[in-house]
């Protein structure tokens, strides 16, 4: 009798793969919108035409542009005018510390943001001055000279003070770009900073009250509390997170989540941070996986040889 096993194996594999294709790639393609990344190019925003001068930029930031009226630049020794929880009470969300803005955000995006925040952030649907809804950050209308030159100078200054190279860690990228709205409890991160280790219960409770008050302001400001991102890498995946951050409106029209404006490098660092929090053991998994596969292939070879040995008398 001829051996039907190869044919049976083909049939089993065919139907298994058919089911897999239908319930995984096919079903997901039908259930979810799919957008391709633009590589954080922000093609809708105008390109920078002027070359900035960091020294002039510094004067503007500290002077005419009045950035430090609200923003901290802790790197330059300028602390925030208000504690995060008070700032959130006043503005809805704590204005960012600008120390590393030049590294985290795309230059073109920063320039657009300074000139017209709601447009760059894609929150014009939410903040319409005609309806009395004014975005907390005022636009910069220039300090009397060429506004494009002035903006380029400011961006240049921010880039000059920001972290560079190895010092630019995934944690800095996450905390700067995401961390004032999103918590990450698996990394002990709250929107007002990392949870310290407390000696006294009173300190712990005081911190928790601060977080709760901050989150109350944030909830009012955003419409709902932005989600904790601890395992978003598992629930949303890298592709969704990247393309969502690049343009939240294309997935969720009308969402209060702003376009964050990160550059490609810091987007990759944010992903790495999220992988560290939500898929912590991925390197161990790959390593152990390879060893287990080698072991199990050897086991399968021995099983095959044993079968041949036992069955040689049976045919």
């Amino acid at each position: 009798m001829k051996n039907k096993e190869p044919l049976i194996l083909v049939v089993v594999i065919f139907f298994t793969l058919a089911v897999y294709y239908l319930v995984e790639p096919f079903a997901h393609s039908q259930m979810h919108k799919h957008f391709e990344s633009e590589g954080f190019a922000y093609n809708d925003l105008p390109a920078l035409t002027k070359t900035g001068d960091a020294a002039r930029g510094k004067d503007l930031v500290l002077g005419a542009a009045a950035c430090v009226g609200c923003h901290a630049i802790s790197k330059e020794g300028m602390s925030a005018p208000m504690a995060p929880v008070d700032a959130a009470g006043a503005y809805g969300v704590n204005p960012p510390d600008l120390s590393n803005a030049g590294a985290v955000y795309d230059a073109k995006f920063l320039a657009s943001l300074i000139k017209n925040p709601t447009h760059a952030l894609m929150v014009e649907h939410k903040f319409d001055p005609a309806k009395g809804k004014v975005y907390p950050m005022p636009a910069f209308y220039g300090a009397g000279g060429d506004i494009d030159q002035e903006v380029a100078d400011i961006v240049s200054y921010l880039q000059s003070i920001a972290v560079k190279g190895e010092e630019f860690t995934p944690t800095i990228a996450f905390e700067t770009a995401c961390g004032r709205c999103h918590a990450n409890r698996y990394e002990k991160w709250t929107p007002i900073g990392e949870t310290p280790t407390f000696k006294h219960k009173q300190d712990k409770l005081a911190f928790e009250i601060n977080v709760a008050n901050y989150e109350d302001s944030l909830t009012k400001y955003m419409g709902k509390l932005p989600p904790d991102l601890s395992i978003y890498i598992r629930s949303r995946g890298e592709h969704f997170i990247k393309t969502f951050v690049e343009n939240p409106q294309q997935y969720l029209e009308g969402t209060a989540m702003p376009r964050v404006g990160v550059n490609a490098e810091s987007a990759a660092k944010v992903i790495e941070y999220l992988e560290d929090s939500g898929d912590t053991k991925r390197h161990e998994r790959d390593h152990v996986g390879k060893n287990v596969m080698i072991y199990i292939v050897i086991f399968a070879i021995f099983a095959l040889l044993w079968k041949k040995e036992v069955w040689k008398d049976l045919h």
Partner: protein
Amino acid sequence: MAHFTKATSIKDWLNQRLAIDKVEKVMASEYWIPKNINFLWAMGMVLVITFVLLLVSGIFLLMYYQPNVDLAFDSVNYTIMREVDFGWLWRHVHGVAASVVFLIIYIHMFTGIYYGSYKKGREMIWLSGMLLFVAFSAEAFSGYMLPWGQMSYWAGMVITNLFSGGSLHADGLVEWIRGDYVPAQAFLDRFFMLHVVLVPLAIIGLIGLHFGALRIPHVNNQDGEEFDFDAESKKYLDGDKAGAKVIRFANDFMAKDMMVVGIYLVFFFYLVFFHYDFAMDPVNFDPADGLKTPTHIYPEWYFLWSYEILRPFSTNVGLIAFAFAQVIFVMLPFLDRSPNAVPASRRGLFKYWFWAMLIDMIILTSMGKVPPVEPFGSIGFYAALTFIGLWIILPFITKMEKKV
């Protein structure tokens, strides 16, 4: 009292008390299996191995899992996935095995259907197998509740709602099952109990019954050939191993089983380490939130075909169709009126019935996951009607079958 003599060896000592030689013969070396079988006959052993993987990984997970609505999610996703050494490994083994075990169960079931292994004295094998299917389904569903993610919560909500019986409005029954108005602490606790105690005990008992049911009718073979096991086993023991139509369970059959198991484990561990996402739905990595319904609610892939029999109809008709789909496979040995216990390829119309049923169930599976918009709604509707129709015509087409 039996007469005991001074033991000559440890083996003799055990033999006098436990008859280990006899047990070994009955269970292994003189448990006779037909020789003309293909690798599909190894699926039983593959299932045993997978069940052991589930049991062992489950025991490790149980040491850190917290059945509490406030702690469950983080005990799985933080404690087990990040803090416990190799916790991620046990979880991925458990999750992937829970999905793959159903793939093997379906292959095992369709093998039985194709070769007519539920007929002529093998009805109890089929019935105990179907009970195992029900028990595994309960085990899978209750286990799916435990991480207390969005899909756990909402699948729990939807499935327990089925017990309201549509227009019967048996809401009291639903509350009784949940122990609350909505899935909450009482719900999680009882599904935890079901998952780690009651259902596993039932499964272990049913596996015993399933194996026991094989003893008297013997394992079927790929030609549906009937032969005298006593005569063939005598031939084997007399030295004509090549001529005998039977082989020993161990080591002959076991050697082939282990070969298939070896190849299967390569596939299995590839999935565990490099392709586990299919078995761990992304939606369930969001914590349960009773105020936020996920956009798409669907069961795991192995329940999709029966879900799709429920979905395209109005509530009451859907529930009846669903109930029909849940029990109808159990009835197979009695609905198949043919006198032939041979492979489907030699059974006339039944051959077409088999492939139509397989393809229809795959279509139902696919349509059960996608949103019920056109054309998927219509495809699902007709596939559900086809499923019911195929079962209605089964007794007639098998009755017409000529004896081969």
